[in-house]
């Protein structure tokens, strides 16, 4: 949790402005070494072993084995339909919501198995937050969107809750924008603001892991840049797994990359490792071609 990587909450806005330069010029990347310093340990937070996902008996993902390092941003890249989202939703067992979906193999979060075993889903999902492609705040007020999950998870004291709400809104840079209308409907916010609110809603429960499913793809470029910088700033504090179509985005924010590809009708990991290695000297020819060819 080094200060260089996770700025204090009150400087987040300034920090975001500083990062704008990097966003507007894709060549102006932070050096790999500096990024890696923030998650230098490379200790696995999630250990995925031989994971497979089936829909109605049909294999969608198989043979996925990889470690996701603690405190790093791990990008899952690859073309559509190669099981990236299925992979993500099996990390917090959201796959349970899809009928006919079956997950096998092993996923350990901080050493604890979450696949198949009779685990407490509520505790799991508290530890593993998730953000979706389309912002999905509840049809409640801005404040209630954050306060009500807290209340549900046992934070009874109103003042503590209010403090937590303010804190997390500052963390996502939304406080100055909404502090005067906390009781206004969250659906009245712009798309980018809604997505940051959703991020705040996940963060307010202090998860260890954050799963982001193409969090910027439904946003306009400006809002997308703000959210991207925000994600960058989570490095070191959270273990972040982000699915993205956008190779340039992965290049800008990822410490670690896993390349998914469709092999014999099912998705699997063809290459993974530190972002510097995957992007600068890909070992797999598929990865090399995809990184070279994918634009946007």
């Amino acid at each position, binding site marked *: 949790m080094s200060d260089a990587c996770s700025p204090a909450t009150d400087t987040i806005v300034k920090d975001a402005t500083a990062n704008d330069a990097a966003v507007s010029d894709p060549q102006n990347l932070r050096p790999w070494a500096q990024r890696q310093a923030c998650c230098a340990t490379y200790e696995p937070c999630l250990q995925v072993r031989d994971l497979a996902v089936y*829909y*109605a008996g049909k294999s969608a993902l198989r043979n996925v084995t990889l470690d996701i390092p603690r405190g790093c941003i791990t990008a899952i890249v690859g073309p*559509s*339909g*190669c*099981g*990236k*989202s*299925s992979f*993500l*939703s099996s990390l917090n067992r*959201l*796959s*349970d*919501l*899809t*009928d*006919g*979906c079956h997950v096998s193999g092993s996923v350990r979060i901080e050493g604890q198995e979450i696949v198949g075993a009779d685990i*407490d*889903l*509520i505790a799991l*999902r508290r530890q593993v937050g998730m953000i979706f492609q389309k912002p999905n705040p509840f049809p409640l007020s801005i404040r209630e969107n954050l306060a009500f999950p807290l209340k549900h998870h046992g934070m009874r004291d109103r003042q503590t809750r209010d403090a937590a709400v303010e804190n997390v809104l500052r963390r996502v840079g939304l406080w100055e924008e909404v502090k005067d209308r906390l009781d206004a409907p969250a659906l009245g916010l712009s798309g980018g603001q809604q997505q940051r609110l959703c991020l705040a809603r996940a963060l307010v429960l202090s998860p260890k892991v954050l799963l982001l*499913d*193409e969090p910027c793809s439904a946003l306009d470029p400006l809002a997308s840049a703000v959210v991207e910088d925000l994600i960058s700033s989570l490095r070191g504090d959270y273990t972040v797994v982000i*699915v993205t179509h956008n190779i340039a985005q992965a290049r800008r924010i990822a410490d670690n990359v896993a390349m998914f590809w469709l092999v014999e009708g099912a998705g699997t990991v063809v290459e993974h490792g530190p972002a510097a290695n995957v992007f600068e000297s890909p070992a797999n020819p598929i990865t090399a071609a995809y990184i070279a060819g994918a634009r946007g």
Partner: protein
Amino acid sequence: MSRSRTDVPLLWTLRAVAALAGAITLLIVAFLILEAWPALQSPGIAHFLTDSSWFPASTAPQFNLLPMVVGTLVATLGAMLLATPLGVAAALFSRFYAPPVVATWFRRLLELLAGIPSVVYGFWGLVVLTPLIRQWAPPGQSLLAAILILSLMILPTIALLSETALRSIPRAYLQGAASLGLSRWATVIGVALPAARTGIASSILLAAGRAIGETMAVLMVAGNIVQVPDSLFAPVRTLTANIALELGYALEGHRAALFVSGLILLVLILLLVSLSRWIMREELNVTAGIEPYNEEARAPHG
């Protein structure tokens, strides 16, 4: 949402509630059979059609339900013959002939007509319609009055549901007809009615169900004399009216006989519901493909 251990009781509560709601139909059938059982055993089911007449309370009771069955069927059939063309025409008017503002108001009017309680229709029929018929052919309270009032009651049902069916015709069909230079009437006959036929058919069946089951309006205008009617102006008694008139004082065998007539009504309705489900099956299968709530829509993408 996540399943927690505290949610297990909730789920079982919901299951129990739904089971209770679903069991009401069974409970109704069970109690009808239970109450009708004495009459089904003796005099036995054949007597309901072969006895000489309906004298259920006398010392040598007669249980011929045939006049009531005929009354129900004839009144329903007459009302269907009258209300179907008018109702479909009203739907076509609202969908294809009326200017938008008129169509909106006409729909509202149909909704209001559909919302008028049957007892009010019956009351109006009794004090306004039957005296008019009496002037023409006494006694006034008659099969004709029952048919007219029933038609009035089921017309809005046919019109509103047929209109919904016409409204859901794909726009492309109508554009296709327009591009062929078809006249409005040719479009209606050649494209709109065939395309909406299952919806219209099911609206007619639903209306028939309502006509068979209607009690109050018929009770108040039909005259309620137990006879197979020999003309439109003869009084009739329907199955429903028979129950409403006699349950209050019916005892033992008589009461059981009335529950038998309730069972007959229920069977008629079951037949209509099954027929309407069977007709709509084709329609349901077609729309199932675009239902936004299918498995694929829920599965995570990518």
